[in-house]
């Protein structure tokens, strides 16, 4: 890991109510790689992911201390502009949540709120992103159909296209394949692998097989702490920490 990190987390602590969800997190997420956050349910992996684009802000009773630097800029600084930060990251949630509009408008939504109005520019963007996510041939004849008519796997790819359309640098995936069938899952996994040429990707997953197949680096989180961080093969095949060993073998879940 010699290259400069894309996201650098320093002494991050997150409390929600009187629960200490994340405890002194320090990590550097590498640029243009796939990094998977693994760990048992409730360990704080989703919270960690959401701290990267400040989606935690809207949680009741949340207290966040420490720094998260994206491209060297502290996103929790008092003068940081939150819409600008979020635009840098595309989020792919557990289940697809298409916006209540047509396929076309879903992809065009982001560019439109950021001020792109020209039909021709939007058309090109929509086509480009739908091609990038392999949807174009499936939907090009019904761009004005409601997004909810698509299958759930197609919807998830549409959500990815929607995220990419605002020109992010980072893709955050929160167990993005957990609602999908095996075929759609492997399509999404392949997309992640091909997209890392242009984007830094951070995934939360509880499927070790997926983590192994897709990611370059793995972060193991347990009880709100980072236990181990390193290249995929190293963490999964020869973990240094006892806890990681137990998790990888399936003793703790």
């Amino acid at each position: 890991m010699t290259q400069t990190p894309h996201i650098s987390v320093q002494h991050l602590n997150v409390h929600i109510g009187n629960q200490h969800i994340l405890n002194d997190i320090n990590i550097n997420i590498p640029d243009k790689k796939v990094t998977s956050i693994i760990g048992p349910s409730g360990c704080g992996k989703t919270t960690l992911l959401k701290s990267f684009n400040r989606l935690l802000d809207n949680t009741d009773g949340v207290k966040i201390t420490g720094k998260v630097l994206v491209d060297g800029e502290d996103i929790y600084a008092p003068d940081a502009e939150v819409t600008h930060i979020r635009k840098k990251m595309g989020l792919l949630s557990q289940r697809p949540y298409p916006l209540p509009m047509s396929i076309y408008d879903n992809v065009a939504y982001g560019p439109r709120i950021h001020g792109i109005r020209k039909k021709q520019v939007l058309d090109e963007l929509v086509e480009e992103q739908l091609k990038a996510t392999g949807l174009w041939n499936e939907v090009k004849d019904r761009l004005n159909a409601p997004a909810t008519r698509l299958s759930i796997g197609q919807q998830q790819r549409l959500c990815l296209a929607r995220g990419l359309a605002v020109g992010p640098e980072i893709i955050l995936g929160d167990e993005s394949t957990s609602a999908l069938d095996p075929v759609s899952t492997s399509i999404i996994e392949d997309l992640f692998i091909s997209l890392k040429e242009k984007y830094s990707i951070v995934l939360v997953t509880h499927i070790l097989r997926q983590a192994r197949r897709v990611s370059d680096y793995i972060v193991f989180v347990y009880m709100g702490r980072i236990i181990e961080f390193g290249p995929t093969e190293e963490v999964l095949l020869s973990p240094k920490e006892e806890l990681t060993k137990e998790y990888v073998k399936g003793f703790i879940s």
Partner: protein
Amino acid sequence: MKRRKLEELFFRSLMVIATVVVGGSFFLIVGTVFIKGAPYMTWDMLTKTPGGGFYIGKEGGILNAIIGSLYVAGGATVLGLIISIPVAIFINMYMDGKKFLSNTLRAAFDVLFGIPSIVYGAFGFLIMVYFGIRASLLGGIIAVTLLVIPILVRTLDEVIRTVPLELRDAALSLGATRWEMAKVVLRQIRPGILTAILLSFGRAIGDVASVLFTAGFSDNIPTSLHEPAATLPLAIFFQLSSPVEEVQGRGYASALILTIIVLGITILAEILIKKFSKHNI
């Protein structure tokens, strides 16, 4: 084994009886209104205002009350929506981390929801006296708006809360501002907004007490907000209290008209809800 079967039979019978009672009373009510009102349903009832001898059984109709009711209920629903939508958005999307405050507000609207409409009528009347407005269409609209706001806010609040938080996160992570996110949520709940409008309009058009002092009554169709306006429930009340059989019958015909309006709106709303929900999850 026998006891369990008996229990099954007993409760199943209870459910069937309850369903029959509810369904039956619907047909009984609509049926009574129809049977008693239909013979007096004339084209004149719908198209004419009361003539000189209307209340002793001579010519004329209740167009004044039909139009008056539509004005009052329509005006109140529109005014109510203009106030309620921002309130519902604010409570749900701008009060993060202030759960106590937003829940207090919700409780307050629940209390307002339960206040009898005569109280809104009296309160509306006080406002009118204060501003020197006489019984008029405007006064009626104000009182009925007060009546429907809690209905609108609570209904909108409920439907907004059915929108998954992830949809909001989806909009936010694209860099949307809170208001842009709110617009996505509003789009998502369009069928819910229609339901709220329907509930509000239905309540508004049928309520007597709130318009009793505030809208007044007139045999003419109001041509400005400052003129008194007749409403269907009041017209029904006046006609039914008449000793003249002809006029009583017209009272049922008026009730039939009111029922048909409400029924029509319900059906329209159903159709619109189906049309608008095609984008929803």
